[in-house]
């Protein structure tokens, strides 16, 4: 089904509406700062920014329960942040510092957090789908009420892992919410240049899985659709595929000259930017004043500055520790 655009005013109390806006701003400002830090040589390797797609992570993750599992991709800073990893720890990981979530061993693409059940940060496209299905199988066997949310991009639908996992999740009726962030490009290859069937929901439906297609630029639409979806999965209806139609405003990574799309296309999508449209909507409805917005933004900027300071002050894992954790130390039980 295609989720109808929610009509009428934002259906949330002021606090929650502000929470959604604040989280989108937190991602936006953290990502802008990350790009700057990349330019300054503080962050290295690959850096994939989420700017433009904030409504998806924020709307979707606020619809999950704390005990749920989360599996995501290499464009996951936003997911980790909304899930509850501190910006300090995220930036420290991007710096490669020991104070990062993974001691600096994973970097930008591999954020892991046992406390919030964030199982990475997988940089193999579609690599997280089988793992998500397995986590869900464990929950089904153990009869928990937990579900697993698995994020991936439109590029993943070309991989065999996508199809094998969709089939098995549907066959075994596993509690997985497949969250497809369709930003129209797999790196630089447009969906119509790589798929015979560009309707991604049709692919999922072929596995007899219910599907929802939603405007991923609208945080309210995302939240409402995901709320419904997670309730169905949690109720034991089996897996569900949700397609968030979104767009990344920045390059794929910091090495992308963006030869494959026009500036006009990017500008067109920017008019639908999730942060400014939601801000305008709240203001129009009298749920946000300019003073409140400035205060929120200032608070977010303070958080970003503190995170940079934390990462800067971080330390390097001693080289002699490098071989630790290739195997689980004797005596510790996973």
């Amino acid at each position: 089904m295609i989720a109808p655009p929610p009509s009428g005013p934002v259906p949330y109390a002021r606090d929650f509406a502000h929470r959604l806006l604040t989280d989108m701003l937190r991602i936006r400002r953290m990502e802008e700062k990350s790009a700057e830090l990349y330019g300054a040589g503080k962050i290295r390797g690959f850096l994939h920014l989420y700017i433009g797609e904030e409504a998806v992570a924020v709307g979707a993750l606020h619809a999950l329960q704390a005990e749920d599992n989360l599996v995501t991709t290499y464009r996951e800073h936003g997911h980790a942040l909304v899930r509850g990893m501190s910006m300090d720890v995220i930036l420290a990981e991007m710096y490669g510092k020991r104070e990062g979530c993974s001691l600096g061993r994973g970097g930008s693409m591999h954020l892991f957090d046992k406390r919030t059940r964030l199982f990475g940060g997988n940089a193999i496209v579609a690599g997280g789908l089988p793992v998500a299905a397995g986590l869900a199988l464990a929950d089904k066997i153990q009869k928990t009420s937990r579900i697993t949310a698995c994020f991936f991009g439109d590029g993943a639908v070309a991989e065999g892992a996508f199809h094998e996992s969709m089939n098995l999740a549907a066959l075994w009726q596993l509690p997985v919410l497949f969250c497809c962030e369709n930003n129209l490009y797999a790196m630089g290859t447009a969906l119509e240049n790589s798929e015979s069937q560009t309707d991604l929901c049709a692919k999922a439906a072929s596995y007899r899985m219910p599907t929802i297609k939603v405007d991923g630029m609208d945080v309210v639409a995302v939240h409402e659709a995901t709320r419904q979806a997670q309730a169905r999965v949690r109720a034991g209806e089996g897996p569900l595929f949700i397609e968030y139609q979104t767009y990344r405003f920045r390059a794929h990574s910091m090495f992308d000259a963006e030869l494959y799309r026009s500036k006009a296309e990017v500008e067109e999508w920017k008019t639908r930017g999730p942060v400014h449209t939601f801000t305008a909507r709240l203001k129009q409805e009298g749920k946000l004043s300019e003073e409140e917005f400035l205060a929120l933004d200032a608070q977010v900027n303070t958080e970003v500055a503190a995170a940079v300071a934390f990462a800067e002050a971080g330390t390097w894992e001693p080289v002699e520790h490098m071989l630790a954790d290739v195997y689980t130390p004797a005596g510790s039980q996973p």
Partner: protein
Amino acid sequence: MSDNTNNRRISYRAALHDGLREALQQDPRVFLLGEDVGRYGGTYAVSRGLLDEFGPERIRDTPLSELAFVGIGIGAALGGMRPIVEVMTVNFSLLALDQIINTAAIYHHMSGGQFSVPLVIRMSTGAGRQVAAQHSNSFEGWYAHIPGIKILAPATIEDARYILAAALADPDPVLLFEHAALYNVEGELPANETVDIKSAKVRRKGTDVTLITYGGSLPKALQAAEAMAQDNISAEVLDLRVLRPLDTEAIVASVRKCHRAVVIDEGWRSGSLSAEVMARIMEQAFFDLDAPVARVCAEEVPIPYARHLEEAALPQPEKIVAAVKALLGERA
């Protein structure tokens, strides 16, 4: 040694079956998944009867989706279960290589030690049954290249029976390679044996030469040692059992005693496990050697179907004897 009166004669297949059954009985977190493990009874009949005993939740037939069901094993392990994934053969495990190497092997380290993947993956390996090049590979040495996983190659009845318990007790991903030519081999099963997954084991004591091998080549090495005994050549046979991490200490100890070594490996020669074993001997026991280390490997060819060609392509007792005699020179 255990009490001989308690020993019983069973096949390698039955030993694996009994180990699997015991694991399912002892730990409710353990379940088996893979192609044809349930209704069919397992391609090599290792899991026959287990579906009736444990039900379809714990003996789970999968579609032909190696990549997904190995990944599902990883996820289930992360989620608190103790899955055993059966991949029909090592050849098909290549379809799951991404999940094994890019996910299972790196998870603990790359998460900064936050997550472990207590997963066991069983698969058949090896040649010798005239099933041609797509069903006869020996990639366990290749897997042994990868940090983060452990590689086991049970070659005896007692290892087949008891190694699974040790693998399941391990907190990290363990790959268990069952040589397809061994399933029908019968032998005495010592009662109440346990095996570790750290050490190589001397299967025959000797003084003139060490035959270093594992898996399906172990019976061939033992046969060669027996034949050479009649020529007054005393061969020690060291079963590596654990291909990663390698028990270098046991290798070096035996070479120091015998001063000559032949490595027998069903993998292809170039870049093989045999090469790694030889390199370690060079690094740590070079001055104990009376002759260059030799090896008997599979010929570098896709394993052919025709019996005479397949036999010629694989390590055989005669080739091992010839390699030893060449090392001993005029003494032999």
